[in-house]
């Protein structure tokens, strides 16, 4: 008997058991949430409102404008800043990283600068951005850019740098010139790591944007969250947090799909970072 009990705990569950345990844990959690927050349940609704109140808040957010914009407009405002900052960082960071991976001297010059700047958290740039650019969209784009550029550069450099020298020699032997090697051999081989860099960079950009919106914004999901906290609308605050989380997860999934499309041979698909 003892061995059978132990073997259950030491064996990975099958697909159906996995789903069942998953669902079970979600049901138990929702049940506990509902039970503890019911009137007289021990947790005040000011600390954590019951699930149906959060659902109500979500419906309210969907149907009526909050803080001057609809939920769609708030999401669009956040997305616009994140995309602008992330793409701008990619436009600078991707070529810079590839150059640093390919030319030794470019790496020698630029890498130490990044090493010096990297320990400063992107969030610490927010006050500087506000003094320089004011509480506007440009300040947020600037901070997102700072957060996004480091993974863009570092991963591109690493991707190009760690290409198998044998591939380059083979291409040289077959008569390829420098440009052909860089575009057809190096960038092609490095593609999965380049996309991985883009994914990490997008994750950083999103995380940082939320912080920037807590400090300098007049719309956006972080702005909703902070205001809801000030007016004690915890339901709305939780909805904003959930949307932030879902969008973050969505970015990650989309970038993994992109990897699968542009580099179907890569084994990075299974990994999540």
């Amino acid at each position, binding site marked *: 008997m003892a061995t059978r009990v132990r073997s259950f705990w030491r064996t990975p569950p099958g697909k159906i058991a996995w789903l069942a345990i998953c669902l079970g844990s979600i049901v138990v959690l929702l049940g506990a949430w509902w039970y503890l927050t019911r009137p007289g349940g021990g947790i005040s609704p000011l600390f954590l409102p019951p699930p149906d109140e959060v659902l109500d808040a979500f419906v309210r957010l969907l149907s009526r404008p909050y803080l001057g914009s609809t939920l769609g407009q708030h999401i669009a405002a956040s997305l616009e800043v994140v995309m602008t900052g992330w793409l701008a960082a990619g436009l600078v960071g991707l070529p810079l990283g590839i150059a640093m991976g390919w030319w030794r001297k470019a790496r*020698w010059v630029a*890498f130490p600068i990044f090493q010096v700047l990297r320990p*400063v958290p992107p969030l*610490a740039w927010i*006050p500087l951005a506000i003094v*320089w650019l004011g509480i506007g969209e440009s300040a947020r784009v600037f901070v997102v850019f700072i957060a996004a550029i480091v993974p863009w550069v570092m991963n591109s450099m690493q991707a190009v740098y760690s290409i198998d020298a044998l591939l380059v020699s083979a291409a040289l032997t077959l008569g390829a010139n420098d440009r052909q090697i860089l575009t057809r051999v190096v960038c092609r081989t490095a593609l999965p790591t380049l996309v991985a860099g883009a994914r990490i960079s997008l994750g950083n950009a999103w995380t940082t944007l939320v912080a920037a919106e*807590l400090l300098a914004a007049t719309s956006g999901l972080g702005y909703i969250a902070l205001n809801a906290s000030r007016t004690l609308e915890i339901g709305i605050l939780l909805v904003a947090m959930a949307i932030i989380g879902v969008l973050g997860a969505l970015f990650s999934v989309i970038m993994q799909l992109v990897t699968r499309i542009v580099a179907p041979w890569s084994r990075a698909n299974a990994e999540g970072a």
Partner: protein
Amino acid sequence: MTTIAAPMASRPRRAPLSPPLVYGAAAIAFLLVLWFAATAIPGVVSNKVLPSPFDVVERFATLAADTFSGSTLFGHAAASLTRWLIGVTVAVGLGVPLGVLLAWLPPLRPAVTPVFELFRYIPPFAWVPIAVLWYGASTTTQAMIVFIAAFPACVINTQLGVAQVDSILLRAAKTLGAGAATTLSRVVLPVAAPAIFTGIRIAFSNGWMALVGAELVVGKQGLGFLISQGQINDSVSTILVGMITIGALGALIDVVLQRVQRLLLPWKSATTRPVA
């Protein structure tokens, strides 16, 4: 928060990545000179926008000696470090055992995965407003943000490290008569230790970065608070001193951890890819 994705296949490196220091030093010196020149030549950059490097050094000395917004620079740094230490200690204390359990007892994984994934994608800073509601502008609020930022890296890397332990080792231990406790403490943990340590390093750095964000929004002390006060007082030199201190302390933490890792775990690290 920054992770370098490892190359897809592990191949022998061509050369160590550290370039000759001369080039790097020259580049940084050039930037410093450029900074100084831009502020020294009148009409290029206003001192309000970017003070000269010497102003920043002077401001550093002032902040170190005099109180600004409640305490000296060291007081603010100590406040930040205390909160950070509380948060990461709890994160490591809970995260590493949870990671071991998840890897060791597979049926626990589906029970925890839905919640864990749900919370993992909510950035630590999105917790700031609700943490303020729950605990006010207190040390608990800041430590909670640090904990949220540090916890996932501990769990994920520990789980990966433990799951990677070669099953031959486990069977060998079993054959030699080891029970579950002995196998865990004498075989699994030493093999997984480098991966666990990598997780702790990422957790420490994530926690430090998140703390700055939390301190910008709430609190009356700390380095994040210092730079937000610099912003309110329109003092770019104060902001720069704060940023440099934050960066230097973050780098110092990581260097110390690397040393500790080499001291404690001299054996070769597992080929785990760090996950942030």
